[in-house]
């Protein structure tokens, strides 16, 4: 930087003439506008705002001006540089937005691609159906009781008022367990060991009721879900191994009306508020009075009865679906299980889970529930 040249008296400096400043500004703005990429804009930025740009050079000349002209020129250059910087920033924003938009477009994927890297698992619908029914009662305060599947005859039959000659105790219905001495040897098979062990595969979940009464002081409110066994060959409608859920309530003053109300509550919880049940007299050794229980067909609500235009395949246009058996616990059963029938009464019911799954989910063949084919089970997922 040279010292002020006092001898020099320029009247005008070419570069600081107003029209020159305006030209520089306009050229800069034009260059920014012409820049079509961030790189081009950077070049234009260097050319028009850098230390060697015309406006920067012009700015240097201000010092050479006589004092009275400095302010004027300074103001002009400053305004021009301000306009240029503003133009640059605006263009920078514009071009960055364009770039961002372009990148996002380039990064787009086909979101419809399928994805089955680890196929979903599932719980068996019999398991989840059983839990669902049980939970209706658990939420009311009932507890879940469980018991052995290989069970003593006394629990499976005697305690439940099945006399020694009851037809259910015959070989055509019940799996009998060999005596332990026979089990030890390979050649233990033989009809002569029939029933000697006093042990069977439980034919219903009712022995759990007997155990629950022996284990607890009344009042007893339990549900007993579980696996049971009968000597049926597997076919479309039978399976030797199936699932039941039973309910037992023992308390002071329980009545058949309470049984009816509990059944109504269950079908409403499972099938909707407008559901109800129907009782028909029947016979079971462990209940007296006994009843067969039907639920209103949850599909047609009974409207298919006598109405050929609205036939219902869920209930075969009967209007009702047979559910299972129920009744007031036979006082003999209470006695055998240590409950005083003079003080307490009880009700019980039970039904098959397979059957409920069949009509609720339109399962046509029992074998589908037995064979463990993943194509059947997977769609049922985690809960039912």
């Amino acid at each position, binding site marked *: 930087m040279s010292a002020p040249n006092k001898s020099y008296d320029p009247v005008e400096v070419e570069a600081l003439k107003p029209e020159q400043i305006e030209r520089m500004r306009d050229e800069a703005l034009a260059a920014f506008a012409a820049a079509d990429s961030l790189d081009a804009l950077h070049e234009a930025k260097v050319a028009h705002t850098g230390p060697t740009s015309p406006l920067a050079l012009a700015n240097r000349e201000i010092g050479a001006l006589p004092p009275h002209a400095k302010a004027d020129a300074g103001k002009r250059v400053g305004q021009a540089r301000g306009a240029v910087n503003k133009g640059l920033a605006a263009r920078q924003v514009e071009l960055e937005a364009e770039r961002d938009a372009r990148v996002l477009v380039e990064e787009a994927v086909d979101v419809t691609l399928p994805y089955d890297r680890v196929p979903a698992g599932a719980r068996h619908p019999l398991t989840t159906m059983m839990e669902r029914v049980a939970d209706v009662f658990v939420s009311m305060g009932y507890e879940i009781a469980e018991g052995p599947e290989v069970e003593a005859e006394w629990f499976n039959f005697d305690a439940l008022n099945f006399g020694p000659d009851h037809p259910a105790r015959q070989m055509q219905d019940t799996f009998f367990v060999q005596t332990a001495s026979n089990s030890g040897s390979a050649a233990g098979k033989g009809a002569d060991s029939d029933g000697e062990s006093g042990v069977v595969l439980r034919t219903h979940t009712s022995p759990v009721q007997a155990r629950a009464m022996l284990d607890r002081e009344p009042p007893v409110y339990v549900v007993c879900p579980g696996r049971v066994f009968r000597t049926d060959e597997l076919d479309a409608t039978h399976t030797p191994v199936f699932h039941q859920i039973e309910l037992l309530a023992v308390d002071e003053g329980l009545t058949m009306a309470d049984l009816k109300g509990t059944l109504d509550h269950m079908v409403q919880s499972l099938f909707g508020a407008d559901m109800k049940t129907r009782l028909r007299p029947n016979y079971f050794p462990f209940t007296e009075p006994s009843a067969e229980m039907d639920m209103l067909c949850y599909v047609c609500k009974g409207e298919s009865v006598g109405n050929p235009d609205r036939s219902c395949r869920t209930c075969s246009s009967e209007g009702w679906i047979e559910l299972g058996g129920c009744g007031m616990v036979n006082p003999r059963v209470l006695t055998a299980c240590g409950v005083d029938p003079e003080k307490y009464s009880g009700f019980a019911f039970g039904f098959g889970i397979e059957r409920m799954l069949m009509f609720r989910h339109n399962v046509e063949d029992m074998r589908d529930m037995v064979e463990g084919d993943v194509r059947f089970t997977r769609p049922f997922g*985690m809960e039912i």
Partner: protein
Amino acid sequence: MRVPLSWLREYVDLPATETGRDVQAKLIAAGLEVETVEQLGEGLKGPLVVGKVLTIEELTEFKKPIRFCTVDVGQANGTGEPQELICGARNFAVGDKVVVVLPGAVLPGGFEISARKTYGRTSHGMICSSDELGMGDDGSKGIIVLPPQHEVGTDAIELLELVDEVLDIAVTPDRGYCLSLRGVAREAAIAYGVPLRDPALLDVPAPNEFGYPVEVSDPLGCDRFTARTVTGLDPETRSPIWLRRRLQKAGMRPVSLAVDITNYVMLELGQPLHAYDRSRVQGAIGVRRAEPGEKLTTLDGVVRTLDAEDLLITDDRGPIGLAGVMGGANTEIADHEDEAGTTEVVIEAAHFDPVSIARTARRHKLASEASKRFERGIDPLAASAAAQRTVDLLMLLAGGTAEAGVTEVIAPSAPRTITIPADHPDKVAGVAYGRETVVRRLQQIGCDVYGQDRLTVTVPSWRPDLTDPNDLAEEVIRLEGYENLPSTLPKPPAGLGLTDRQRLHRRVGRALAGAGYVEALNYPFIGTEVLDQLGLDADDPRRALVKLVNPLSDEEPAMRTTLLPGLLGALRRNDGRGSHDLALFETGLVFRPTGEEHTAERLPVDRRPTDEEVAGINSALPRQPRRVAIVLAGAREQAGWWGKGRPADWADAVEAARTVAREAGVELTVRADQHAPWHPGRCAALYVAVNGEETLVGHAGELHPRVIKALHLPERSCAMEVELDLIEQAGTGALQAPRISTFPVATQDVALVVSRDVPTADVEAALREGAGELLESIRLFDVYESKQLGEGRKSLAYALRFRADDRTLTVEEASAARDAAITLAGERTGAVLRGA
């Protein structure tokens, strides 16, 4: 029990417009399980008339003999001319009365009759068989030949009672009385509120000394024996149409007049009867138990070796019948087609012990119409009426004469009474019926009722099922209508919710399903073959089996001791059906003999068993722990547009065990093991701490190649099985929440070289212990082997994260902890820092 509606109406005045469906609904509400209402003769339309065969021309030019007949049908064909008919049956002759269907008629099943050309002639209708008319088998093996007295041209639809409704009732074991028209009519009469015409109300002559001699030597097995004799029967006489039709509709086949009558009376009154040909009975009729080894040929021609408990009917020669079950062949009523037809019969109407009859029927696998009724209990007081009814019908229909002798051997018994509070039914039902209603209903079913607040109820002789107060309550409630019971909801006390064991069971199922496993519920039956295929040693405890007396399959006669056979079967089944990438799980009981099993005692039922007695029963049962198992085959991760897939391997199986343990909040210790059915080099033993003691809970890994081959499983199939109950016991209760430090983490990576056979778990345990309290986590992120490392060496690269609760760690602190970790790993496992 099949009940023709027309027959039922004989005893009850049902409203004329009432259909079978209406009656069905009423009886169902009263507790009779009326399964179906069969519509007999549905769609049947005449003309169907009686005809008389005038001529028969045998046509022989066809493959089978054909008859061209002319039949007089009177004016039924509009002309009075003989009707020309083709017939393929041969069981009739000129002059016989037959049933002719004429053109324009419709037979059951929508079979429209018209004149048609057949066998070169025109048949103007058809001569009918019982099958074609929907009557069921009548044993004629041809067309129907009617008794000669029926006029030609008579409408046969009415004559043969072809149009009717039949209620088919599944009678429950307590309702033996409904195995008779009398019993069903009683229920119908109550349901409709109309009187019953009781067919058992007959005049019966008093017993006397001249009857056929009967000696009952077992009055407990037979408390009543009535014998009547009818002589002068015409063996040629056949049962009249009405009798045959009623038997057919009730599902029985007409046989001969005497037998048909005993069957008819049994259906009507519920009392099984037996008719002996008197000429074939020698000496007095006796009732006694069999001697062991005694033999009897029953009516069905089977020679039966008798048991000492079998109750027998005998004569001087020995057994002539299995009491209440089936008669003997040696005293059978002779058919009129035989050389000498029966002309004299002795009628037996007896009452036998239900249990004895049930056992005999079961022992000889011989369930008869008679045994079915005796087992359920019949009305002992109806025996003499039934005998009288049989005598009456034999006189009326077979021209017989009743002998004056009436034998009755009766063991005295008193009527049974039950005492109940008058409001007992109200308390059972939860309904205020009131005493009047209770008494009225009990009287309706035949009880005598006395008393005010306490009722003394004498139950009718036909209801042996009524023994307890609740039996009477049921009668009142069912007649008042189960459908009229109100609906009230009892409120149980607050329950405790699910037990830990139950919650764990559910959580494990959800966790495994969440990890991609599909649940299978397999049958628990196995045989020794699969245990051989699994390669179990001879003394493997899984070979100790709970065996069944009567398995469905001789190949699978025992209960599972492991879940794997069932699951592997499901794996193979799925694979065979084209699903190859498989992850299955099952939770369920296995059955492990304790070796201490004894016969489970049959405890009394008239009191609570003692705790010792219950424990005694329980110790007769095998151990039945709950287990969980998984099996894997094919890809664990599928290949796809994202890249390569990954086959399921041993590590997935072990991870499944960790998933289970995690749900229980239990730490799983993994060690190498050799255990069937797993690959000896790829088998992990799994341990948890139960009460501070390390306990083996199961195994996981890849299956042994020999097992895979023997069971035809996909290659490299993997499996895991653990005892869920043990894992549950290892649980430590409510989780204690971790404290979260917000100071920064210090990360240090270390690469250690160890001998290839050092278990990684040991190295990690040493690092963990050596690093001390500052270690927040440790993670193995790389394992490799290479030439540079040297033969039999492997490199393990760990990321260690350090953090303190109360300060930011310095680099020196973190490094010191790391170095301590490395030092301990070196001492314990020989590990050296890579590059050191």
